[in-house]
């Protein structure tokens, strides 16, 4: 009995020391990580805004849609930026996309993700989102790899789960924007 208690106490102490070490480092790094994340988010919003004026953020939080931001030009609503949550091969992913009021995708960017370097990580590259741009309004966004051209299909091979995650997020974003109907 004493042996089990001694083993338990030793394990507890090891875990306590390790947890304290991690907590100490977290205390130092957490503010910096939060600042980096916010900077990345602002940079992504600027990248997908297409030169329009970025309005006030409206939180949605219905699962796949985190929030939307109206984009305005001189005459009124020109479109929306939508932040979308989805999942890929490495877990949760976040996509920031801008749409015209009719649901046509203007720009998109994959931000936070843990996809595999060389495979799913390709979705961070500029050419990846070109497959979806201009679609979602009168022409549907590709829902699966079979909807792509042979060249695009080959380009995303080896990362079907990532592609599925990105395309489903962009489709739900397009449907959400259509539902807004040009309203703020």
């Amino acid at each position, binding site marked *: 009995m004493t042996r089990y208690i001694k083993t338990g106490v*030793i394990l507890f102490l090891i875990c306590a020391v390790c947890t304290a070490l991690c907590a100490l480092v977290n205390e130092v*790094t957490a503010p910096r990580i939060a600042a980096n994340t916010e900077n990345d988010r602002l940079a992504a919003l600027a990248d997908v805004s297409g030169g329009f004026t970025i309005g006030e953020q409206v939180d949605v939080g219905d699962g796949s849609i985190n929030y939307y931001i109206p984009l305005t030009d001189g005459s009124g609503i020109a479109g929306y930026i939508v932040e979308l949550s989805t999942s890929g091969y490495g877990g949760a992913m976040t996509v920031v996309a801008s749409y015209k009021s009719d649901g046509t995708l203007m720009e998109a960017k994959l931000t936070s993700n843990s996809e595999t*370097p060389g495979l799913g990580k390709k979705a961070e590259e500029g050419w990846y989102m070109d497959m979806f741009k201009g679609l979602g309004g009168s022409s549907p966004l590709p829902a699966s790899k079979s909807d792509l051209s042979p060249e695009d299909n080959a380009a995303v091979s080896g990362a079907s789960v990532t592609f599925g995650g990105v395309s489903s997020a962009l489709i739900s974003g397009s449907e959400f924007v259509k539902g807004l109907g040009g309203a703020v």
Partner: protein
Amino acid sequence: MSHIKELTKGIFKENPTFIIMLGMCPTLGVSTQVSNALGMGVSVIFVLTCSNIFISLLRKIIPDSVRIPSYIVIIASFVTIVEMVLHAFVPSVYEALGVYLPLIVVNCIILGRAEAFAGKNGVLDSALDGIGMGIGFTMSLSFIALIREIFGAGTITLFPVGSFSGVITIPGLSESPVRVLTLAAGALLLMGYLKAFFQWKTARGKGGEA
């Protein structure tokens, strides 16, 4: 064995990648760019050295029956620390390493050295073993990444400094690279050839059949 030998054995004689063949998963996965290899290498050196020191310090306290869970807790803590530090201060490397960073926890080199060396030897020797093995792993990983990136993409990606973008483009190769080398199949092929070369070198060194 002298302290210096503990440090140098991991670099050539017992190189974790080419001789002991440990840590193959991150070696094949991360070696697509030199900067990724260096980032992963430095992370492994830190985790390996710190976990070796900790485990060596606690080797007489940790009961034999729970040594593996204890080692994993210690290793996972240092990996979490590396992850937080990279995320805060070198976010580009953190993003590039992706899922391979938390997977250092299950890197066979770390647990292998804890079990085979740090759990049985003194603190100084364990620290030197960790540093040497880490340097050996970093050198191998960077060497593989260098070959894969030069021939597979025609570039050498380092870290941006001032006006230097961090990417060196190799004329000729960047226009018509050997794309297979950037894929997992190319990594396996290259590993096979390099392993054969080091086997031949080792056999020659011992005076055996080359």
